[in-house]
């Protein structure tokens, strides 16, 4: 924009920014912004993170908590994609379906996913159904909307060609709309994964006896702040990994299409 700085300058400033962040953190402790049990030092958090890999907290080691979370995430997100994408594509093709579903969808869309927790608990107890419902509530809208938009934005000429060739509805959706909508669908998956992961954490904060959300809320009751922070970091890292994986998928798919 205004200042053009060289590559090396950019990275130097980035390094300063990173060091500055940690320096500020340490400084906050040194200056007693908060008592030690409320604000552990960065290396203490890291140590705790490693410790949690071997020593259980709230019943399980870090790995097992993470596994439980990922299982629930997988179910909820998988369901959201499996229902949302075909439905979105179908809505993009069948006007009537669009007219029927959209009002219902718009009505439910503004309800925050976490608001489903009471019903989830009521219907599924502490089983895996509860968190799955909430993750579904979070991940479903982006999957649906993006598949829908992708289908609607397909170049009309493809559709004209398909109808000229006498291709039926089902094949039009699967062989014309779907491939054309793939970029939009993947974008929807990425957003959905992010929202789903967040909804999972929220659900586990309230109605779970294992998992990352449960881990940090138990740590909070015990005022084990280093564990809370370690948990937050682990949650963040896995969230990034999921996002990166989906981006990889996106790149692989795009390469495939242009080949």
């Amino acid at each position: 924009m205004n200042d053009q700085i060289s590559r090396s300058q950019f990275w130097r400033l980035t390094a300063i920014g990173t060091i500055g962040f940690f320096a500020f953190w340490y400084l906050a402790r040194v200056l007693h912004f908060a008592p030690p049990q409320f604000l552990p030092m960065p290396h203490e958090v890291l140590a705790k993170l490693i410790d949690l890999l071997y020593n259980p907290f709230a019943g399980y080691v870090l790995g097992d908590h993470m596994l439980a979370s990922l299982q629930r995430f997988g179910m909820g997100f998988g369901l959201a994609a499996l229902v949302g994408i075909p439905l979105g594509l179908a809505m993009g093709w069948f006007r009537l379906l669009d007219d029927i579903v959209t009002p219902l969808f718009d009505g439910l869309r503004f309800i925050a996913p976490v608001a489903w927790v009471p019903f989830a608990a009521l219907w599924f107890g502490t089983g895996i159904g509860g968190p799955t419902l909430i993750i579904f509530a979070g991940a479903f809208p982006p999957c649906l909307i993006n598949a829908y938009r992708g289908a609607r934005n397909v170049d009309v000429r493809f559709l004209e060609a398909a109808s000229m060739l006498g291709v039926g509805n089902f094949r039009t959706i699967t062989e014309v709309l779907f491939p054309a909508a793939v970029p939009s669908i993947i974008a929807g998956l990425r957003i959905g994964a992010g929202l789903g992961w967040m909804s999972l954490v929220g659900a586990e904060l309230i109605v779970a006896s294992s998992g990352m959300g449960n881990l940090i809320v138990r740590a909070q009751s015990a005022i084990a702040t280093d564990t809370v922070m370690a948990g937050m970091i682990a949650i963040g890292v896995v969230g990034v990994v999921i996002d990166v994986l989906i981006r990889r998928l996106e790149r692989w798919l795009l390469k495939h299409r242009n080949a």
Partner: protein
Amino acid sequence: MVGVTTVVVFLVLWYLATTVTGLVNPSRFPRPNEVWAAFSFIQTEGYGNGKLYQHVFHSLQLVAMGFAVAVSVGVPLGLLMGYSRRAEALINPAFLLLRPIPPLAWIPLAIVWLGLDDGSKILVIFVAAFVPSVINSYTGVRNIEAPMMEAARMLGVKGWRMVAEVLVPGSLPMIFTGLRLSLQASWTTLVAAELIGALYGLGSILNQAAQDIYPAMILVAMVLVGLCGAATTWLLGQLENRAMPWRKGRVAA
């Protein structure tokens, strides 16, 4: 018209399923009349420490505060990072380190620091609303076309005038996208925070109703959450239309 029909059909099915046929167990999902009764009850008698308007008002207050602070810090920061590569390099690390942590994951930490009072809720709402504001303002500035920026510099526009008369108006569409996302995140986070522990607010109604196993009240609270979210989003949309009067039809040849 199909829309209205769908809603009506849905309501009828709901009534049939719960009341007439008893297909759905009322302890699992409330009947329409029960929901209405719960709604009236909370309006007149109150539920969970207060009447309906008190809860709604409290939630709105917290969202407004967290949102306002997040946006007043986030938008200028995003604009700065977009305009100055130096600022971007310095601030990005902190941002990238904190961004992956989902806002809801901040709730336990916020409770440790600020207890179960309003403060911890506002903190979490701030964290949730902050990120989209920054990112979208940043993108907004970066998307201003190069010729326009060059024209501004050519005209001798500097400093505050550059910000107020070029950067902000040029980024306004994206800034509003960010605001909408921030608002959405604010509501989601507030409901979660209140569900975990609060005296007042829509989330606290949900919590209380869940504990009392009062499905009708759960539904009332859920619908209210949706309505508040929709209403505030609508308001933002109105603001958006008014803020950008230059985006209308074609006049001359």
